[in-house]
C-alpha cells in the first residue's frame, strides 16, 4: 500500500495533469449536455477534424508551435521563482522586430529569415530585461511591471505600424519570401496547410531549455535561485544577475514565438485592439506541463488540438467554440487546485475500506 502511494506521489505531477484533463473535458461535456448538444459527437468531431487529414494535422501543428514557445517562456521563469506574465508583450515586440527586419532589411533568403527570427528573440529578451532589472535592483514585483510592459508593447506596435511602417494603414505589407519561414516542401507534405519551420525552432528551444537547466552551470544557478535565493546568496551566486538572465531567456522564447508566428503564419503585422492571448495561454501550458520542457510540449499539443479542432467542431457538431475555452479554464482550475491529490486519496481510502470490510466478512 505504501509503495503504491509513494509511487503515486512520485508521478503525481503527471497524474495531476492527466486527471485534470479528464475532469476538464467532463465539465465541457456536462455544459454541452446542458445546452442540448451531444458531447460524444462533439469531441469525436473535434479530434477527428484536428488529426486525421494531413491538412488539419499541419494546421494543428501550426497552432501548437507558438504555444510551445510561450509555454517554455513561462516555465523557465517559474523555475527561477519568477512569474513572467509579460510573455504577451514580449511576443508582440518579437512580432514587431521580425516584421521590421522582414520589411526594412534586404537580405538573401535563409539569412534574412534567420536575422528576422533572431531580432524577434532579442527584442523579446530586452523587453523582459526591464522587469528583471527593476526586480533585481529596485525590488519591484515582476508581475506589475510586466503587465504594464504588455500594454506598452501593444500600443507601441500599433503606433509603429500606423506611423512608421505604413502611411496610416491598419496592417503592414507582406514580408518578402526571403524572410518567410514557410517552405513549400513542408506545406505540400501537409496538404497545403500553413505549417512552417517555427515548429522546429520550438522543439529546439525545448531541448535547449532542458540542456540549459539540467546540464549547465547557469541552469544550476537559475534553479538554485528559484528554489532558495538565500542559500544561493550564501553559496556565492549573484541572485540579481540570475533574475535578470532568467527573465531575458524567458523573453527570448517569447520573442521567438512572436517572430515565428509573424514570419511563418501571418506574414504581416496588423493593428490589434486587444491582446491575442497567446502569451497568456503560455501560462496555462506551463502550468499543465509542470514547468518541464517535455510537459510543455505535451500540454501544447493538447491545447493546440483543442483550439484547432474546436473551430471545426463548431461546423460539424454545431457546438460553439466557447465551450473549448471553458474546457481550458476548467483544466487549469483543476491543476491549480491540485484536485487529483484528494481524489487519489479518496480512491485508495475507499479501496482500503472495502478491503477491510472484505476481511471482516
Amino acid at each position: 500500500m505504501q509503495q503504491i502511494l509513494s509511487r503515486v506521489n512520485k508521478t503525481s505531477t503527471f497524474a495531476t495533469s492527466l486527471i485534470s484533463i479528464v475532469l476538464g473535458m467532463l465539465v465541457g461535456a456536462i455544459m454541452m449536455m446542458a445546452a442540448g448538444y451531444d458531447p460524444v459527437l462533439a469531441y469525436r468531431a473535434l479530434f477527428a477534424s484536428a488529426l486525421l487529414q494531413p491538412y488539419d494535422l499541419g494546421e494543428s501543428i501550426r497552432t501548437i508551435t507558438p504555444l510551445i514557445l510561450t509555454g517554455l517562456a513561462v516555465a523557465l521563469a517559474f523555475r527561477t521563482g519568477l512569474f513572467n506574465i509579460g510573455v504577451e508583450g514580449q511576443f508582440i515586440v518579437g512580432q514587431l522586430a521580425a516584421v521590421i527586419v522582414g520589411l526594412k532589411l534586404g537580405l538573401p533568403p535563409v539569412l534574412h529569415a534567420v536575422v528576422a527570427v533572431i531580432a524577434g528573440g532579442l527584442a523579446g529578451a530586452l523587453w523582459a530585461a526591464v522587469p528583471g532589472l527593476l526586480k533585481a535592483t529596485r525590488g519591484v514585483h515582476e508581475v506589475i511591471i510586466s503587465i504594464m510592459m504588455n500594454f506598452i508593447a501593444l500600443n507601441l506596435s500599433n503606433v509603429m505600424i500606423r506611423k512608421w511602417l505604413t502611411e496610416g494603414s491598419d496592417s503592414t505589407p507582406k514580408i518578402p519570401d526571403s524572410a518567410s519561414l514557410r517552405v513549400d516542401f513542408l506545406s505540400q507534405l501537409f496538404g497545403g496547410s500553413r505549417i512552417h519551420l517555427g515548429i522546429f525552432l520550438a522543439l529546439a528551444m525545448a531541448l535547449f531549455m532542458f540542456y540549459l537547466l539540467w546540464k549547465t552551470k547557469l541552469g544550476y544557478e537559475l534553479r538554485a535561485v528559484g528554489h532558495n535565493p538565500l542559500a544561493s546568496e550564501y553559496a556565492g551566486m549573484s541572485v540579481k544577475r540570475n533574475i535578470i538572465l532568467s527573465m531575458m531567456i524567458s523573453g527570448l522564447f517569447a520573442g521567438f514565438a512572436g517572430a515565428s508566428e509573424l514570419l511563418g503564419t501571418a506574414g504581416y503585422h496588423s493593428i490589434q485592439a486587444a491582446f491575442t492571448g497567446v502569451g497568456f495561454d503560455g501560462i496555462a501550458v506551463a502550468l499543465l506541463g509542470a514547468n518541464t520542457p517535455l510537459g510543455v510540449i505535451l500540454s501544447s499539443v493538447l491545447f493546440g488540438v483543442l483550439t484547432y479542432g474546436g473551430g471545426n467542431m463548431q461546423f460539424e457538431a454545431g457546438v460553439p467554440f466557447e465551450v473549448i475555452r471553458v474546457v481550458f479554464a476548467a483544466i487549469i482550475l483543476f491543476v491549480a487546485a491540485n484536485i487529483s491529490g484528494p481524489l487519489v486519496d479518496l480512491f485508495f481510502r475507499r479501496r482500503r475500506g472495502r478491503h477491510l470490510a472484505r476481511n471482516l466478512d
Partner: protein
Amino acid sequence: MNVVEMRGITKRFPGIVANDNIHLTVKQGEIHALLGENGAGKSTLMNILFGLYQPDEGEIFIKEKPVTITGPTMANKLGIGMVHQHFMLVQPFTVTENIILGDERSKRGMIDYKKAERQIQELSDRYGLRVDPTAKISEISVGMQQRVEILKTLYRGADTLIFDEPTAVLTPQEIDELIEIMRNLVKEGKTIIFITHKLKEIMAACDRVTVIRRGKVIQTLNVSETNEKQLAALMVGREVSFTVNKKEATPGEPVLTVKNLVVEGNRGIEALKGLDLEVRAGEIVGLAGVDGNGQTELIEAITGLRPVKSGMIQLKNRDITHFKPRKVTEAGVGHIPEDRHKRGLVLDFTVSENMVLQSYYQPPFSKGWAIQFAEVDQYAKRLIEEFDVRTPDEHTPIRALSGGNQQKAIIAREVDRDPDLLIAAQPTRGLDVGAIEFIHRRLVEQRDKGKAVLLVSLELDEIMKLSDRVAVINGGRIVGWVDPQKTTEEELGLLMAGRVIQEEVSG
C-alpha cells in the same frame, strides 16, 4: 486522575511509522517529560493530542473520557494548550491584543480590552509570570514573549499545557525562571507535558519521563529513580559519552582578526558596535550570547552576506572586509550556517547537487558551460561515505533526509573544502545525541589539524565543552573573554545578560 491517556496510538506517513502503538499516561498535576531524539515521534504524538493530525489507530482519553480531537479549537475546549517552539505572536500588537486574538470577548459588539487586561494581569500574578499586559511584543524579551504564549493558553482555560522544546531560546537564568513558573503552574493544579531532548532540564524539573525512540515508547520512569546517563542510553539505544575527548590546544598565528567592526542590522540599527575578535590557528573560539546580540550579523559580515559599515576583517593578514560571499569562500572560509534550511541547503536539490553548492563552477565539477554531473556524483558518494550521511543514494532530494543527516551533509561540504577558518553557527541545533557527538568530533578534528574554528552557539553546554576560549557577546560588543575550564555557567550567564567583568582572560 489521568488527565491525558493515549492508548495504542499509531500514525503512519508514507514510508515511515511515526508513532507505533504508543501508550502515554499523564497524571493530574505532574510535569511529564517526553524525551526522544529528533524524528523519534514526539511532535507527531503531540500534534495528534492537539488535533492537528488524526491517528490511524488508537484511542485518546481526556480526564478519563474517550474523545476524538478534530482540531486545535476542540483541543482548547478540552483544556489542552500548546506553547509552540516558534512563537505565534503579532509583533506590533500589545500583550493583551495578542492573547485575546482569536478569542475576543466583546461587550455590545466592542472588544472589552479593559476586562481582558484585568484578567491577564490576574493570571500573570497568580502564576508569577510578571508580564505587563500593555507592553508591545516587539519591546519585550524573548523570555517574556514565551510567557505571553503561556498566558495565551491559560486565558483560553487550558489545564494541560504542552511545552514544545521551550528552553531552546532562553538564557540559563531564564531557563531557571521558566522551571519556577512550571512549578507554580503545577502547584495551582495544572498539568504539563514537556517535550525536550535536554536531559538536565528533565532532571531539574520533571516528575516522570516517557522515552520515545523510533516511534515506540521505550519506557516511562520516575525521574527520581533515574539519571542522565540512563536516559541518554534509553533515548539513543546505546551508551553515549558526554565528554568530548580533546587534547590541549596548541594555538598558532591569528587566522581571523576582526577590528572595531560596525554593522547594521535588519532594521537599520547598529547590530555590531565596534566588535573586536581574534581566532587563531588550532583553536576553537566559542561565541556565547543570548540570541539577537549580534551573532548573526557578525557571521554575515565575515562571510560577505552583510555590508560592513566600518572596521576591518582580516583572514591570515589579508583584508577581506568588503569581499563578496564567493571571494570569502575562495579566500578560505567555511561556513556552517545557523539555519540549514534557510541558507545551508537547497532543499529541492539532490544530495549531490547540494554537495557542490559553492564549488560547482570549478574543475573538476564543470568544464566550459557544462556541469560534469558524473564527477559531482562521485564526489558526493565519497562525502556520503566519509561523513556517514544516511541517504538512499546521492540522487535523493535532500529534503527527504532527517535533520541530522542534512546537517552532516553541510558539514561534509564545508569541512572537505579544508578552509583555514571554519565558522560553525548552531551546528547541532535540533539534532540528536548521536549526531551531536559526530559533529563535535569533526570540529575538534579541524582544530587539531591546525585550522581556526569559530563556534557560535546558543547552547552553553556546547560552548563550554568544545571551546578553548569563550568570547561573550552582548549588545554588539565582546563584553568579556572567559576560560571554559575555570568559569561557571552562572558567570557566563551574567556576562551574557550584559554584566561586564573587569579581569580578562588572556589566551
